[in-house]
């Protein structure tokens, strides 16, 4: 596959690892904030291939994981209403809400449908004019432009029975919150590649400027990630700190201006509650006044409950990079992919799920 296979070349991997080995002397901790990066590190076996001093931890990079239970509960309240079809990305199906999951509700005959693209929910709305189709919108900046397009499409085509639960979040404010909290000593950030295709490199500039921490925007293939580690090590070696783009084939400094415009046309930035991190200012998206008629919760009269955490679940600390999954008392015992307690275990890109799948739940 073009533009994928070349970046998996084992010879390039070998060369990069050698150079990393030569540069990595003292212990360094880098944080990645993208579930796909979490998975890639495990999937290819990169973690074990990196020399000892290089330590990569996971941050709040999984939008499924940081979506609070009250949003899921609200989605379930929605689908319990008469004549509602709930459309969702597959990732949300198995996530536990406070008492159930969308998958379990589907088994109980609620009309929950998995879609691959948000646009598919418009098609469902058109085919079911007597039903209300509610789309559960979860994701970071990679996904929100396509949701914006979907809302605009509904407006353009006059599809009145389409509604949105807008639970989208923004990554740079979460990175800022982590740095402000100062819980973890970080020597560098591996920034999310596809979020950055939308927002560009500018939103991360505050990190080296204010906190002196090197940043690299990385692709997802092994060569990309290893080259990114090398870039961070070089910056540290040269005493520099700036935002560098490794994923130059997809990320431009100004990102995708058209996508950014679609987002601002439909959404406005609001404060948002992140599971494990609490309320973060200006870190979420809500439908702006022009498009508020598409707000599902408002239309159906559903309120959001107080966000709550299952007792013993350490997802919060794991999402903040303070702990790793094997340190959670539930991990591998009470909390497994088959019977997940917290979202980090059930999301296909959750940190706990990644650890469990690829290390078979080995405990600390």
């Amino acid at each position, binding site marked *: 596959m073009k533009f994928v296979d070349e970046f998996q070349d084992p010879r390039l991997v070998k060369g990069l690892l050698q150079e990393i080995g030569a540069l990595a002397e003292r212990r360094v901790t880098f944080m990645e904030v993208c579930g796909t990066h979490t998975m890639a590190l495990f999937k290819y076996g990169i973690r*074990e291939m990196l020399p000892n001093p290089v330590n990569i931890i996971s941050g709040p990079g999984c939008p499924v994981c940081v979506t609070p239970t009250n949003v899921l509960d609200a989605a379930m309240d929605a689908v319990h209403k008469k004549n509602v079809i709930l459309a969702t990305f597959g990732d949300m199906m198995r996530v536990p809400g406070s008492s159930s999951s969308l998958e379990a509700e589907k*088994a109980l005959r609620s009309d929950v449908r998995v879609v691959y693209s948000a646009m598919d929910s418009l098609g469902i709305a058109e085919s079911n004019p007597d039903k209300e189709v509610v789309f559960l919108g979860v994701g970071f900046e990679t996904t929100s432009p396509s949701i914006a397009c979907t809302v605009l499409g509904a407006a353009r085509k006059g599809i009145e029975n389409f509604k949105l639960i807008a639970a989208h979040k923004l990554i740079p404010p979460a990175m800022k919150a982590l740095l402000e909290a100062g819980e973890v000593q970080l020597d560098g950030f591996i920034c999310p590649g596809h979020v950055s295709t939308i927002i560009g490199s500018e939103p991360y500039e505050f990190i080296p400027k204010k906190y002196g921490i090197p940043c690299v925007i990385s692709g997802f293939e092994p060569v990309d990630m290893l080259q990114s580690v090398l870039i961070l090590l070089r910056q540290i070696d040269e005493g520099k700190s700036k935002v560098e783009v490794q994923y130059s084939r997809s990320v431009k400094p100004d990102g995708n201006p058209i996508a950014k415009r679609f987002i601002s046309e439909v959404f406005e930035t609001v404060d948002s509650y992140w599971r494990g991190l609490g309320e973060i200012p200006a870190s979420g998206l809500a439908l702006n006044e022009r498009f508020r008629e598409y707000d599902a919760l408002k239309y159906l009269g559903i309120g959001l409950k107080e966000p709550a955490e299952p007792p013993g679940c350490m997802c919060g600390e794991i999402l903040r990079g303070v702990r790793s999954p094997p340190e959670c008392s539930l991990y591998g015992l009470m909390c497994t992919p088959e019977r997940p307690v917290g979202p980090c275990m059930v999301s296909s890109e959750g940190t706990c799920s990644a650890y469990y799948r690829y290390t078979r739940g080995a405990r600390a």
Partner: protein
Amino acid sequence: MTSGERILLAHGAGGKLTRRLIEKDILTRFMSPILKRLDDGAVFTIENLKLAYSTDSFVVDPIFFRGGDIGKLAINGTVNDIAMCGAVPIYLTTSLIIEEGFQLEDLRRILNSMQDAADEANVEVVAGDTKVVSAGSADKIFINTSGIGIVEKEVSGSNAKIGDKIIISGFIGDHGIAILSEREGLDLKVPVYSDCSPLNGLVSSILCATEGIHVLRDPTRGGLATTLNEIALQSDVGIRIDEGMIPVRDAVRGACEILGLDPLYVANEGKMVIFVSPLDAPRVLEIMRKNKNGADARVIGEVIAEPRGMVLMRTRIGGERIVDMLEGEQLPRIC
């Protein structure tokens, strides 16, 4: 969590949840030591004749797909289960559950497929049953087949030996992707056909050529990864496979990338894995490659002593990771 009280789709996916259901609810009630072995079919002796006996139900949707239909699947599925017991399948029975309103023309098409498949596999359908249920009580048509055969050589998922070479008979993921591309409304066009085929001819040819075959299994639901994990557990051994050696068509890889699926977990209906002693492996490969169902056969790994009950994979870039059993149902994801 209500999933403990209700059957979920994931319980039928062939992965961990299916396994749990079998262990907790089925094996605790049906105590036969034959059943407990959890091979593809039951193997037992009656009056000095060693027999293999198996059953399977087919609920595939859509019922007509690129490369076959539910009828072809039903015959080959059971033919293969019997063959994986090291047996020659001889007689099959079939049972149809048809939804009221189903087109007679479609039924005839399916029955023709079944007859063609039975002819190709050299088996006879000798008994059957037909039920019709009211509209809405079944989705178009469900088919059950059961089969019986005579064992040529006893193989079992518990027979893997340390040092055994693991051979796959060809490209993985074809069937699952062919079905998925037509079923889920994913608007995916993939020039891939279901690999639905009878493997009994291939099995016979390798069984009569060498003694060193220990395990045969066809990786259906749950894919290659699940099958290898099952065998590792049954035989209490470790398995190491090489990602670079596993044959996957580009189009299947592309479709999996789009949907966020892993080809290792995608269903196959015309492939088998063979665990064979290292000395016999080259001969087995030679024979397989002469058969149309084994033309792309290759060695993908071997049986190791540790870690027991686990499958390790050497990745394309030279790293190593664990290949776990399938979780629930593989859902198309964006994440």
